[in-house]
């Protein structure tokens, strides 16, 4: 049971949150101009790394805000929580 730091409400149990998968996947502009493969990449393909993962969570049973989190998928250690639109913390991030 993770203890997740909602950037607004503070630390809460994992059960209050929803998981939104990989962060920083921008919806491509002009989808109709994309190839099927590029569109598939956006819709389906995921980094799914073993290690630091930049991901989205929503405080579903709290303030209902979405936010980002950098978490190690192997150790479950949280490296930081940051707002939507903000760049990821630390040297690992920054690749949008």
């Amino acid at each position, binding site marked *: 049971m993770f203890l997740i730091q909602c950037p*607004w*409400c*503070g630390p809460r*149990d994992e059960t*209050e949150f929803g998981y939104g998968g990989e962060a920083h996947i921008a919806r491509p502009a002009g989808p109709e101009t994309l190839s099927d493969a590029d569109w598939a990449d956006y819709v389906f393909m995921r980094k799914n790394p073993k290690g630091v993962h930049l991901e989205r969570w929503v405080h579903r*049973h*709290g*303030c*209902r*805000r979405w936010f980002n989190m950098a978490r190690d998928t192997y150790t479950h250690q949280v490296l930081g929580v940051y707002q939507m639109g903000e760049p990821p913390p630390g040297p690992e991030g920054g690749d949008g």
Partner: protein
Amino acid sequence: MAERYKQQGALAHLHLAARTAEGPEDASVRLIERPFQGQINLRGEIGDEAFRSAVESVAGLSLPETPNSFLEQAGRRALWLGPNEWLIVLADGEETALAEALRAALAGQHASIAEVGHSRTVIGLAGARAREVLRKGCSLDLHPRAFGPGQCAQTLLARADMILLQADDRPTYEINARRSFADYVWRWLEDAAREYGCALVAE
């Protein structure tokens, strides 16, 4: 005209009023339903001075900016629900007028006003062991050092959403539960209180 009809709260079927004599006199847990309250869900940017001052003047309330807290003025409360979201709680029957007034005052601004009083019911929980009852289903730290009067939180009670508010340090809590879950929440609370002995009280 609506007054012609009796409102029916979410727990009407449990006939709680008829049961208020139940439970030991010295019960360490007391439960009560407060079914009819005016509630408005208010959204807006607190950093926007026009929004803030319009709300303050129309509602007679300042909006808390500190997460998990509420402010009370003249019998009205404003609960922090999120960075741009508040719940205004006021007397039954007042919310439509206030909502209209807010709508007028905030016209042209980016704000949202929704009446939600009917979508919830409030259950009061008090007594020496109220905290123990609550923590059976609530994972917040309710220790007096961590959560006290003036604080509120949106969280879970067992399998239902709730807005929890602590009114005083006896402690008295208010559980703002969604209407369709009210039956579950009430029965859950009564059952949870069973080992301590529980009394139903009238207003």
